[in-house]
């Protein structure tokens, strides 16, 4: 502490510190009880051993981790989950960037309308929405039925209960997250930069490639992180749109806990998923720390 600082200052500082602790106490208790404690219990469970008769045997073993990280079945599952996350992220970026560009360059009125439309998927219940996709994409769904009627195809397209339907469903719910992240960054780019580029002779493609894309990298990274983490931990969409044929880490965790009653392996999968998510977030923070 600097010698110039008065006792009154110190008292004031202590008082604001105490006040802050008081304000933050309820939320701290809430998180301790409903976030830290459950995660701690799950972590502990992942070190237990499975037992067919007593469900689990308390103790400390890394056998679950060893088994999962060497079993091709689980490695394929992990690979599929990460691939799905990657695929959905890239599709959201490709679909979302032009839309975000359009939104950020629109007048106030058009902007509001486009933003509300973009966010509208978030306003519909997830399960209702998933069933709507089933109605559309099912074997006897609207799309297949219409194409069959028109004679375009001879047999229903395999667009249901597989990676395609899961990907479409996930892109649909993740797109708003991507677009919002992109718009918030694109909005902060001074429109005079694009005017300057234009006056210097830059065609639209060069303006996007040399000015807008590099300057919106933080938004791309934030949106990609958000969508990736959201996708690899999504449960309802892969469960409903994948039938029982597309399993991801999340659906596997569900079936381990609920169907197989193998809590130790389920808990281990939860911990692996959490670590993957934290790694992605950590990577993002490292690359895009505010400078």
């Amino acid at each position: 502490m600097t010698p110039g600082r008065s006792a009154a200052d110190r008292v004031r500082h202590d008082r604001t510190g105490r006040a802050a602790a008081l304000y933050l106490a309820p939320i701290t208790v809430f998180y301790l009880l409903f976030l830290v404690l459950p995660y701690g219990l799950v972590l502990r469970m992942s070190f237990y051993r499975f037992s067919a008769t007593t469900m689990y045997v308390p103790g400390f073993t890394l056998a679950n981790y060893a088994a999962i990280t060497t079993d091709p079945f689980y490695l394929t599952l992990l690979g599929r989950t990460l691939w799905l996350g990657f695929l959905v992220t890239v599709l959201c970026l490709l679909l979302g960037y032009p839309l975000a560009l359009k939104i950020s360059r629109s007048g106030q009125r058009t902007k509001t309308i486009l933003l509300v439309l973009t966010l509208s998927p978030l306003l519909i219940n997830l399960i209702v929405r998933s069933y709507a996709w089933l109605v559309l994409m099912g074997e006897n769904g609207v799309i297949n039925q219409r194409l069959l009627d028109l004679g375009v195809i001879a047999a229903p397209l395999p667009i249901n209960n597989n990676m395609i339907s899961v990907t479409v469903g996930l892109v649909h719910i993740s797109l708003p997250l991507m677009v919002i992240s992109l718009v918030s960054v694109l909005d902060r780019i001074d429109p005079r930069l694009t005017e300057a580029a234009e006056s210097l002779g830059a065609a639209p493609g060069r303006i996007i490639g040399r000015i807008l894309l590099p300057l919106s990298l933080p938004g791309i990274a934030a949106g990609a992180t958000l969508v990736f983490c959201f996708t690899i931990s999504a449960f309802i969409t892969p469960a409903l749109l994948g039938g029982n044929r597309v399993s991801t880490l999340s659906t596997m965790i569900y079936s381990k806990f609920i169907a197989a009653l193998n809590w130790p392996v389920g808990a281990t999968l939860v911990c692996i998923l959490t670590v993957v998510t934290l790694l992605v977030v950590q990577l993002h923070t490292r690359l895009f720390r505010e400078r």
Partner: protein
Amino acid sequence: MTESRRADTALDIAGLVVAYGATVALQGIDLRVARGEFVALLGPSGCGKTSLLRAIAGFVHPRDGAIHLNGHEVSNIPPRERNIGLVFQSYALFPHMTALENVRFGLDCRNVPKQAGADRAARALSLVGLSEHAARRPRELSGGQQQRVALARAIVIEPHLLLLDEPLGALDKQLRLQMQDELKQLQRRLGITSLFVTHDHEEAMSMADRVVVMRDGQIEQGDAPEQIILNPATAWIADFMRAGNILHGATTCGSTGLLQLEIAPGVTFEAPAPPQYHASWKLFVPFDAIRLEPATDEQGMTITAHRYLGLSVELRLTCDGGAIGTQMTLAEAAAFPIGTRARVIADPARCRFLPQ
């Protein structure tokens, strides 16, 4: 357009009308800028000077009128094909590129070969005295240095026309004066036709070959800087340029051919009677046309304020509701302290009645 006129005219604007919805920003602008000329567009905010600049650059589509650049109509071609250099008040440098990359950008757009482009960009940077900062990014440069990079970026493409939108507005006064000199010298040396938007009359006066004063979307007067001060076309311009007093009141016939205006009992000014005089006209009395003489308490006006402007002083005098200002040197002002009275004598030959 005659051949000779076309040859020395870089920019020719005729009947330009710009409107945003129902708001008319420019109502019929006619302006011709000679090759190599440095013109200042001067006016208060909202007068349309920035709209005019943006219409020339191509970011605003005129509702009517024509813009010819080096003899070619450009109203319908996009900004990127006009070959106009633009310098913004906010610099608008690309933050993710170095100074050199910023300057190179326009050359890359023109597919100038790599080495030639690097050489030309480096030359432009050295022209503005920033060679040793070529590898720095904009945020590592001071405001004045950023402004120089913006200037280098605009001139390296060898534009037909250089447009500057309040380019020095964001700099502090000392730096602004220095940049005014540098900008003017550079413009003379390169001979680039330039159009410079400013709301600062001193800046316009000190830099431009010609000052175009705008008001409410129209050109009020376009003339050499000293002419704007000595012969303002309207009372509004004289007031905006702070060139002297703008007085109004009842007029009577004075000495031969002169019209007399009384601003307070016993305080009168005279000026030649204009041919189309109207009662709404005002009397322009330049600061330097006024002479003060010490007076006894019953005569003249009371000196109420001194305002110091460097080496000169602006004096305010009042009398029964009438007020007037004048300027003199510090030494002269010492003879007229605040609270004393002085007789105001103005040279009628220098005073003029002007329309609104």
